[in-house]
């Protein structure tokens, strides 16, 4: 059988095709009208999509029990980041049990591709990809987040606690 179907005169009529397309759209619209709960489209901002717990949104820098930043400025996240958007400056902490901490931690969020590699690379659970994603601003320079915004923004309610505690680890002898 030939693969090429020679159109007969009727097939060159485009009107049935147009009508079929319109009928498809109408069918969908009527279905949506009578099944609004099952509609694919969300009426944002009245309806918002509930993302799963592993959703990769804005970064969160966790804190220790005493409120200080968990990050030890090891720079593994900055090294692993494919977009090279993390910039860290390390400094000596006067407390010898802490020893190293970041005095400057900046993420250029407009460069970030939200891949989550920084979260995977971190050895001390200092950075996580949080659930927030609705952060608009009017100026591009506002998209360089520093420690204040990453760890202590109001939405985090004082800071997210890290699961890896050095004090517990030292007491356990490791």
């Amino acid at each position, binding site marked *: 059988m030939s693969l090429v179907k020679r159109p007969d005169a009727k097939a060159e009529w485009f009107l049935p095709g147009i009508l079929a397309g319109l009928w498809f759209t109408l069918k969908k619209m009527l279905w949506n009208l009578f099944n609004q709960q099952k509609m694919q489209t969300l009426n944002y901002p009245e309806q918002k999509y509930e993302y799963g717990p592993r959703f990769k949104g804005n970064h969160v820098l966790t804190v220790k029990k005493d409120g200080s930043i968990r990050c*030890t*400025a*090891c*720079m*593994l996240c900055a*090294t692993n980041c494919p977009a*090279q*958007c993390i*910039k860290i400056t*390390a*400094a*000596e902490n006067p407390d*010898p*049990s802490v*020893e*190293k901490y970041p005095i400057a931690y900046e993420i*250029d969020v*407009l*460069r970030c591709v939200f891949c989550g590699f920084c979260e995977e690379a971190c*050895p*001390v659970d200092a950075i996580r990809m949080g659930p927030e994603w609705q952060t608009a601003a009017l*100026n*591009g*320079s506002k998209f*360089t987040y520093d420690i204040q915004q990453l760890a202590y923004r109001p939405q985090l309610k004082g800071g997210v606690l890290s699961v890896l505690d050095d004090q517990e*680890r*030292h007491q*356990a*002898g*490791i």
Partner: protein
Amino acid sequence: MPKLKINGKDVEVPQGSTIIQAFKASGVEICHYCWHPGLSVAGVCRLCMVQIEGIPKLQIACNTEVKEGMVVNNTAQGVQETVKWGLDFHLINHPLDCPICDQAGECGLQDQYMQFGQYDPQMAEHKVKKHKVIDLGPTVVLDSERCILCSRCVRFMDEVSKTHELGIFNRGDRSEIGTVEGKPLANNYSLNTVDICPVGALTSKDFRFRQRVWYLKEADSICPGCSTGCNVKVSYNEEGLWRIKPRENKEVNGYWMCDVGRDSYKFVNLKGRLLGGRVGRRGSWQDVDVVDAARSAGLKLRETVEKFGPDSVALVLTGQFTNEEYKDLLGFFVSNLKSKNVFHWLNNPDKVNEFDGLLFRGDRNPNTKGLVGAMIAAGVSGKWESLQSGLAGKKIKLVLVAGPENQAVFPDLEEKVKFLGQAESLVWMTSGTSTVLDQVMAETWQIPLKTYIEKAGSFTTYQGKVQSFKLGTTIVAQALNLSEVAELLAGRDLNWNLRPGGVGGVKVNYSTAQRGAL
């Protein structure tokens, strides 16, 4: 010259070599921590175990002398298992400090662990806790938990610097490196212990936490700190230079360098550098393009020579530039302008012959001998008195100065600037800015120069040994080296294709920098 077989390969070594030296000579890998070619043998890490045919027990390679016909193997299953357990013993009490330890990326334990397969440790007991962040002296910080007690630092203090400041206190797995009360680790070679420490137990206060080593590249160069000319490697990246470490050269510096030389990266970085040409007088400067500045200075220079003769201009040189630069500049000045007024600015003539017994010399210029040689070759030997009389008598109208790049070792900088500023015109070529030039009355041109790491060339050591080095990196792209300045002063043009672009000195994310209001 006994011959031996290492893993089936034939190797020949000098008489009296140990097996580990044979391994190093033939390039076969062997794990070791306590052995160092510049120090005595300690044999305490027990990792360089090898199987020697005919001897049932494994032997350490660092203390066994090579005999003719030895058959040595370190890839057999038994040896590999022993070395893996040797690594295990090192790791069981080692703290989990990799995120905060500076040695990450150049750490022997890390490399060996990755090589042996990243296995799970079987140690489930409490690790031994020791003191951390101990201030040993003005330059070095100790972390006793990370220390694997290889005793390299103790042996260095006993054998190389001979100052005996370090010792091992306590016994067993409570042992710790330490200094005695009242005698901190304060000598001119203390930072070599940071280099030889295979783990992050000894860290340099200067470099501590500033950068991760995998972000750095290394360039070979020669230290410009004094006339010894230690071979060094400079660690740098786009943001600038971060540290200097010694390179091995058995004739010049062995395996070491002094602490003073390690500061030689600071005057190269962007802060404090002259970024472009400047013209002006008495503190009011006009920033001009460096090529324009050099061209206008050259114009003034040639005009002065035409009007008042070759004796109305003077060239003052410091011993901080390469042999090639001296040849080109003197070639222009002496052969082209026919002037004999070339003077050698020596910064500390009374200390020139000082020597501390190991590496550091009193002559703080890397190429004094090269300069003296170049001046002799050009047939000039200006006496400082004639410069003084020439300036006082207003006979010398324009002074061309190749100023120091390492301003810290020129305590007479201010005095000389005032002295040389007596002339009508002053062309000051240097790599760093200096506020002293603001006081000069003469019409001054400031021309930025490249530092030692930004050019290829050669220095001549105090012994007369010529050591060449290649270009490492460029911090200030605008700067020129003296050969290029000589071209411009002569009125010729530069070959723009041969000039390297700069790195800017700042790690710039261009889209962020250009983003402002969208």
